[in-house]
């Protein structure tokens, strides 16, 4: 990895440069909740002042800039006895800045499924390749457990990654594009003091995590497949799908065919779906493999912490706990995992 430092005023110059040349998405405060806690979303910004890099967590992940909740996959138009098809990949360059390590790790996991596997998605890849990513270090967020799933550090998947050293940023450069952009402002070579300050800053962050016991989770889950834990938590599930919408890694979807009212145009529309919704495993003949709430909830956790682990040797979950925060019923991974670890073994 190549490192540089950037003074705060120079960082502002860098952002202004980007704002002047391309679309920039960044964490922005959109208000406060009922308890006065600030609410942040990743949103398009026009001014440096709109960006809040001190944010704790965004309500929604950055996923939807790569996997939109709804996306037109293909349109067709009928004319006389013929028809034409149109497929659109989003190619416009975009800057996505202020991502924490969990959200970048989430993109790396999505890469494995949607960019590197046997069925790469050109819709995803075109967005991913044309997005310039600037990450930033942060202290653990409340309820988050990214360190326990190895998502608190990130070594690739970004262009630039910042660590705040007070009067300056320590910048990790991970792409030639990132290097070229950084060279447009006055970035300095790192000194021994910079390296020392950076490593200390990282240690300070690492020391703030409260570990969650994830030990042997895939095997534990196999053994606890019939556990009361699933009944206890599953019976609370509203089956509303909010958890999967805010999740940075849930990628399941459905495809729907639409016809225009004049009957001349059609479209295949993809919609991100949720394994917690009632009809997720509904099949022909009116059968439903996962008709009850607890089974659906359980399988979401099995995919995140066991199924994905089998295929990719890492969990799909990045420990951001957005699903836990958004759930009105209070269903959250740290408590479920703790319950599984402490439940009487069968």
């Amino acid at each position, binding site marked *: 990895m190549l490192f540089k430092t950037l003074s705060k005023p120079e960082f502002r110059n860098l952002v202004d440069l980007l704002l002047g040349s391309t679309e920039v998405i960044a964490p922005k405060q959109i208000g406060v*909740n*009922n308890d006065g806690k600030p609410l942040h979303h990743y949103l398009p910004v026009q001014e440096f002042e709109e960006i809040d890099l001190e944010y704790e967590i965004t309500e929604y992940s950055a996923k939807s800039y790569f996997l939109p909740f*709804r996306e037109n996959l293909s349109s067709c138009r009928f004319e006389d006895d013929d028809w034409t098809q149109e497929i659109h990949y989003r190619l416009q360059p975009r800057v996505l800045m202020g991502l924490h390590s969990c959200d970048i790790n989430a993109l790396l996991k999505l890469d494995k499924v949607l960019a590197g596997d046997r069925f790469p998605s050109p819709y995803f890849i075109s967005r991913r390749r044309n997005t310039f990513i600037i990450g930033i270090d942060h202290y653990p967020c409340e309820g988050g457990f990214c360190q326990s799933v190895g998502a608190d550090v990130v070594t690739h998947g970004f262009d630039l990654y910042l660590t705040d050293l007070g009067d300056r940023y320590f910048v990790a450069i991970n792409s030639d594009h990132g290097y070229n952009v950084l060279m447009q402002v006055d970035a300095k070579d790192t000194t021994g003091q910079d390296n020392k300050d950076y490593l200390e800053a990282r240690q300070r962050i690492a020391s703030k995590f409260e570990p969650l016991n994830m030990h042997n989770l895939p095997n534990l889950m196999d053994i606890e497949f019939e556990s009361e834990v699933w009944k206890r938590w599953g019976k609370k599930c*509203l089956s*509303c799908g909010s958890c999967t919408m805010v999740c940075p890694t849930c990628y399941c979807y459905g495809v729907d065919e639409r016809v225009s*009212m004049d*009957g*001349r145009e059609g479209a295949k529309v993809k919609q991100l779906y949720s394994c917690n919704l*009632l009809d997720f495993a509904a099949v022909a003949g009116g059968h439903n493999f996962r008709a009850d709430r607890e089974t659906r909830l359980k399988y979401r956790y099995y995919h995140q912490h066991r199924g994905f682990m089998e295929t990719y040797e890492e969990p799909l979950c990045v420990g951001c706990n957005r699903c836990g925060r958004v759930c009105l019923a209070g269903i959250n991974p740290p408590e479920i995992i703790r319950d599984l670890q402490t439940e009487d073994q069968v």
Partner: protein
Amino acid sequence: MKYLGIKPKRPKIAVFDFTGCEGCELQLVNKEETVIDFLGSVDVINFREISSTISNDFEVAFIEGAITRDDEINRLNEIREQAKVLIALGSCACFGGVNRLKNAYDFKKANQEVYGKQHKETLPARAVKEIIAVDLQIPGCPVDKPEVERIVQHLVWDVPYQFPAYPVCFECKQQYTTCVFELGQLCLGPVTQGGCRAPCPVGGSGCWGCRGPAADPHLKEFLQIADEREFSRKEINERLSFYSGFEGML
């Protein structure tokens, strides 16, 4: 014009209003960009908002409004006899809607309050399905025009249509909305039938449940969530009974 080699059916439709505000009927002629094609895909036989033609030679009947009088019951029976497909259009026709609120009051007093000395005959407000067989229900206050379009496409071209199996929350989240519970408001989104694209919570005010219960709604957990957030049972019950979609479930 054939669609994928299928000749459209061009059903003869009629729209009838009962006790309601005619807002759902107005929705049928809303959405300017497609209204010409929408009305062109069907044969409008009887629809007073767009045509003075009156005929009883219809196949598909849209019923708007709740049923609150004796003469309405007779009229409804006649429509049912003629219609091959009968559709309850809007929350009043599907559930009784806001009209049903009167059922909890003394009718004499209610009559006095609304009509003064000009007393009107009235029955307890009922949904269309409580009187005659209904083939399809399109809930909403008002109905969602894109949804009506898809249902009409289903009737005209046999394009499959299914009401979503998810509650309002799902589409609300797809629009980056901050949950209105988080802002201290009550919202029926978790238990209400989705498909409307959540205009109320997205606009900052909680869902009032005009589309009725979602498939397999989790009312027990919902009530606990609302209790925990210290909404009074009175407020919760008033909200759930506002459009009467949850009638009999509380």
